[in-house]
């Protein structure tokens, strides 16, 4: 058994909130650079170059990449041989978010009651997903999620007879309906199978997979490649002002499902697909 003090969790999450909102991961930066080279539209290229300039300014001047610094989505993969001490783990996670958004000059975008809508003032609570894994380590991913693209995300409870064509149409429909609102070029996270909530969670988790890494399942890999190509033929383009780069990647996760169902979740992320990962 390994003992970890929750203070370590507080400081790690604080730092990761700040890091994710100011520095985009290398895979995302490479993809935007590549997109700027291959975009056919002059307008589109111009926008992609502005996005690269925006990333440089964010890094050099410590201004968040986007003013929507998101709701903090946190994946906690906890080794089953770990024991936490020094307080309740969940309190520590929220405290890390509170400190990160406060000290990092990040926007507080969370309202307490979704109907009454009073801002909580410190961007808590976070959205936390726990999983228990083998070993004695804790893997933390902090993925601040902006809502311009979150609002454009969809769940489709398809019928088994809809098949793979139904899945493709669902993804293309979600992207088309998102259009310029989701700040293209997007990253498209897709969850196929499971239950209603499982497919949504897979779609979210898929967004933090490096976008230059394709699915290990050959069928899913082919689907990712075909969908990316077709999304980029939609013409939506950077900023929705027309072009040949509408998405940077399609990341699909799948899971067994029920004989009666074919759930498909499409979680759309803008070009600021942020995540920081750390192991304790």
């Amino acid at each position, binding site marked *: 058994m390994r003992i970890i003090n929750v203070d370590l969790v507080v400081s790690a999450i604080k730092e990761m909130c700040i890091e994710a909102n100011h520095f985009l991961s290398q895979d995302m930066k490479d993809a935007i650079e590549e997109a700027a080279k291959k975009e056919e539209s002059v307008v589109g290229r*111009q926008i992609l170059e502005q996005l690269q300039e925006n990333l440089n300014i964010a890094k050099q001047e410590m*201004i968040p990449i986007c*003013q929507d610094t998101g709701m903090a989505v946190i994946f906690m993969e906890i080794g089953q041989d770990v024991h936490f001490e020094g307080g309740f783990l969940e309190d520590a996670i929220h405290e890390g978010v509170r400190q990160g958004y406060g000290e990092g000059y990040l*926007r507080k975008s969370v309202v307490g009651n979704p109907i009454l809508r009073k*801002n909580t003032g410190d961007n808590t609570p976070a959205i936390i997903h726990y999983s228990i894994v083998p070993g004695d380590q804790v893997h933390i991913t902090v993925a601040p999620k902006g809502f311009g693209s979150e609002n454009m995300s969809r769940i489709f409870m398809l019928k088994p007879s809809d098949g793979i064509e139904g899945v493709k149409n669902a993804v293309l429909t979600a992207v*088309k*309906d998102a259009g310029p609102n989701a700040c293209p070029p997007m990253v498209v996270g897709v969850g196929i199978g499971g239950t209603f909530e499982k497919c949504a969670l897979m779609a979210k988790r898929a967004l933090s997979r490096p976008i230059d890494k394709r699915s290990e399942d050959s069928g899913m890999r082919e689907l990712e490649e075909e969908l990316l190509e077709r999304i980029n033929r939609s013409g939506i383009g950077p*900023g929705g002002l027309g072009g040949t780069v509408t998405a940077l990647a399609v990341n699909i996760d799948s899971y067994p499902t029920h004989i009666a169902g074919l759930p498909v979740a499409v979680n759309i992320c803008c070009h600021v697909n942020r995540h920081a990962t750390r192991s304790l």
Partner: protein
Amino acid sequence: MLPRKSPCHKKLVTESDGDRMADRLMCSELSQVGTVKEIEMNRHIEVPFLEASAASLRAGDCVYLTGILYTARDAAHKRMYEALERNESLPFDIRDGVIYYMGPSPARPGRVIGSAGPTTSSRMDKYAPILLDMGLKGMIGKGRRSQGVKDAVKRNGAVYFAAVGGAGALLSRSIVGAEVIAYEDLGTEAVRRLKVREFPVIVVADAEGNDLYDTAAQRYCREATVDCMNIGGAISQT
């Protein structure tokens, strides 16, 4: 302080440095996409608008705004709408003015503002027509508007601009002053008076009823299963 562009924007109009050339290229390309015959590129406009200058802008125009913008997003629009329902006045004079749909991240010490890019405009569609009918002449955001908003833009000789979404650090450089003037308790959603210099926007919806998003994707659309005439259509029905 952040590095600033020349305060004399008239000089910038005649400059032919690399950036300006690129801007011209950008707008000439858009003009081929748009349905409008005369596109004026890289116009420098003072805001609040002078008489009828909003109505002269056309979808696809690249415009640099200098002057005063007011920020308001979801919660501030709801409050303004409720104030009007109670026959109360708005917290600022919207006549000929421009609202920027934006909630900034906090400014670091010594800075004017934090990251400051546009939010999705369609959430304000419910509130925009009444403000346009009261004299609002411009809106800056991102994404599609409802037909109701576009009709109100047309009948009032107003304009809807898009700024580049997700470029909040870059756009913050064009903001030289910011003060909260109403609804301070709303935090980032408070109404701010922004002083901007050469704030870059593109005209999306104009006083002739043109919508750049209707036409922009068509040129590059090669996917039969996607209805290119209706990109973003499902979310703009309000």
